[in-house]
């Protein structure tokens, strides 16, 4: 990675920003430590100097000038850390480790000052460290100065400053290196995701991001991208599938209609039937075609809606079930089937009422169709112990062997090209699509067992989440 491009990367920019913030914070801390230490050292020096001055002025008061002078000479020889200077009122120097007063004319009798003085360090080099002291005019007009060197503090502060600067330098270097590293890692991870996006852009819907399940955000993004692509691929496949199904479901009836019309035309020409019958035949077939077309369209739209219910409303599933029972009971009884309904009250669900009505109608219709005369069909609507709402239709037809149920559900769930008869199974596919759009599921089970010489029957249940 070249540096200019590195500078444009978000993680690296963030690193720089944080480093700058850190440097500013470190400088502030440094300044604080520096000034706090400096003022602490000055206060300590002043306290020491004040004590020493008290001792010395005490000697002067009690024993006079000469005693003070002697004490000063003793102290200077003892090589303590204080600086001294004593002068006569006329300005001539009496004794001391300094050559001159920092200030000649004092405004008051006692004055604090910071001043440089000449010293030699351990190796004998001449230095000019700072000192803090107080200058006092004694009762006899003599001038006395007591000071303390600040050189220890200065050295300490210099070392501290240096240490802080060094630490800052190391942190900045490490931070930069870390930034580059993080940035490169991120770049690599983003590159992988970008590669997937580019591949998809170029039409490869099978491209997927590598997910390591590390739980980090990029991994999550990758997983999200994969889910999105799965969904997209499934939806593309179902659209393609729907296209195939439309072609399949429309071609056969169209072929049939054409053949029937041709035969009808011949019959009409031969005077065997009149033209009206032929046209009526053609109309019936056209109506069937339209129905098939509408069903396929509805399935495709539900699937394209990808799990979202179109135009959802909260309504009572019990009313829907009761209406369906009322609507289908005569047709069922006409076929010689015992029809019964068991409907609990107050089953509120949220969904698209026409589509749910269609789904329920399709499974009732299926039950009526596949149950032999003398059998029974039962519609039930109830609240499951899980709180979900369940519609179920139980018949006494031949049922579906256990090993085939999975396959039948699959047929519910997607459009099946293996169908030979137009319309057969398409209704079940629509049920599957409706349930998918409502976040529901289909359950297949055995019916009541042997009944009137047939059995074991089939129980189809549509399970939907209850409205909140």
């Amino acid at each position, binding site marked *: 990675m070249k540096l200019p491009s590195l500078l444009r990367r978000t993680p690296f920019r963030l690193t720089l920003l944080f480093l700058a913030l850190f440097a500013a914070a470190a400088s502030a801390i440094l300044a604080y430590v520096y000034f706090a230490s400096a003022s602490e050292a000055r206060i300590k020096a002043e306290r020491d100097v004040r004590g020493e001055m008290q001792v010395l002025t005490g000697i002067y008061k009690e024993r006079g000038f000469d005693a003070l002078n002697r004490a000063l000479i003793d102290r200077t020889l003892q090589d303590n850390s204080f600086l001294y200077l004593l002068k006569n009122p006329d300005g001539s120097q009496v004794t001391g480790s300094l050559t001159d007063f920092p200030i000649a004319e004092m405004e008051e009798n006692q004055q604090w000052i910071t001043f440089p003085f000449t010293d030699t360090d351990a190796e004998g080099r001449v230095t000019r460290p700072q000192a803090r002291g107080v200058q006092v005019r004694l009762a006899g007009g003599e001038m006395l100065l007591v000071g303390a060197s600040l050189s220890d503090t200065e050295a300490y502060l210099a070392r501290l400053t240096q240490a802080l600067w060094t630490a800052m330098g190391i942190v900045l270097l490490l931070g930069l290196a870390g930034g580059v590293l993080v940035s490169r890692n991120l770049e690599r991870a983003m590159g992988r995701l970008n590669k997937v996006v580019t591949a998809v852009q170029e039409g490869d819907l099978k491209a997927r991001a590598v997910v390591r399940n590390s739980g980090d955000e990029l991994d999550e993004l990758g997983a999200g991208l994969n889910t999105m692509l799965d969904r997209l691929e499934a939806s593309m496949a179902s659209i393609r599938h729907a296209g195939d199904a439309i072609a399949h479901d429309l071609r056969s009836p169209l072929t049939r209609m054409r053949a029937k019309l041709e035969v009808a035309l011949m019959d009409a020409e031969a005077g065997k039937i009149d033209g009206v019958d032929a046209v*009526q035949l053609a*109309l019936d077939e056209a*109506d069937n075609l339209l*129905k098939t077309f*509408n069903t396929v369209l*509805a399935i495709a739209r539900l699937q394209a809606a990808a799990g979202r219910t179109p135009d959802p409303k909260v309504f009572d599933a019990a009313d829907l079930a009761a209406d369906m029972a009322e609507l*289908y009971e005569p*047709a069922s009884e006409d076929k010689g089937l015992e029809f019964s309904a068991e409907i609990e009250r107050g089953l509120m669900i949220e969904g698209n009422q026409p589509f749910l009505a*269609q789904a329920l109608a*399709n499974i009732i219709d299926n039950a009526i169709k596949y149950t032999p005369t003398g059998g029974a069909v039962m519609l039930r609507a109830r609240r499951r112990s899980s709180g979900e709402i369940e519609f179920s239709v139980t018949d006494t037809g031949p049922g579906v062997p256990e090993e085939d149920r999975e396959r039948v559900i699959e047929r519910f769930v997607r459009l099946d090209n293996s169908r030979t008869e137009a319309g057969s199974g398409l209704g079940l596919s629509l049920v599957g699509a409706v349930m998918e759009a409502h976040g529901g599921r289909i359950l297949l089970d055995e019916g009541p067992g042997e009944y009137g010489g047939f059995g074991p029957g089939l129980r189809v249940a549509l399970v939907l989440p209850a409205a909140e």
Partner: protein
Amino acid sequence: MRILVVEDDAEAATAMVRGLTEAGHEPTHAVDGAFGLLEAQKGGYDVYVVDRMMPRLDGIGMVETLRKDGDQTPVLFLSALGEVEDRVTGLNAGADDYLVKPYAFSELIARVEALSRRRESGSVATMLKVGDLEMNLIARTVHRAGKEIDLQPREFQLLEFLMRHAGQSVTRTMLLEKVWEYHFDPQTNVIDVHISRLRAKIDKGFDHAMLQTVRGAGYRLEP
């Protein structure tokens, strides 16, 4: 009956005008919503048949404008869109009925005639009478030739709808939509079974059958 057909597809419009003329109506054609609006404002129409998708002013805009101007002429929306939301927006815009393309022509005629009839029966009637069949809407009783006929509640509603549209063809879809208030395809002819039960009650034992099957369309109640 004067019908304003607002449809931008020339071929579909020609077929519709011809069909409506043959069914004994007087159709006028407007090529888009803007012309449709001008034509409608001239007045004198019994029903507007309006295509939803049109250049310049679409069906929704046209009907909304008409309704705002206080024009209460019944509107039948035609649309290639079949989603439930589409029907809801169409009806919200002020349409009275909604038909999805492609439709059977018999369905269109039946719905147009049903719409115009609805306006005529705007006043609140307490009795319906078709031939020797009488329905009391308050007492909810039905008599034919003086003999009381016992009907289930749904059969009563079904007969009421047929009587209100006596002499007109009503399709199975219309019955499911207007009597049961459901919009779906019932697969088998469940409506036929309900009709035959009703027929058994109102026609059996009487000199002539009133409830007729109209081939390719649906049913018609004749006096």
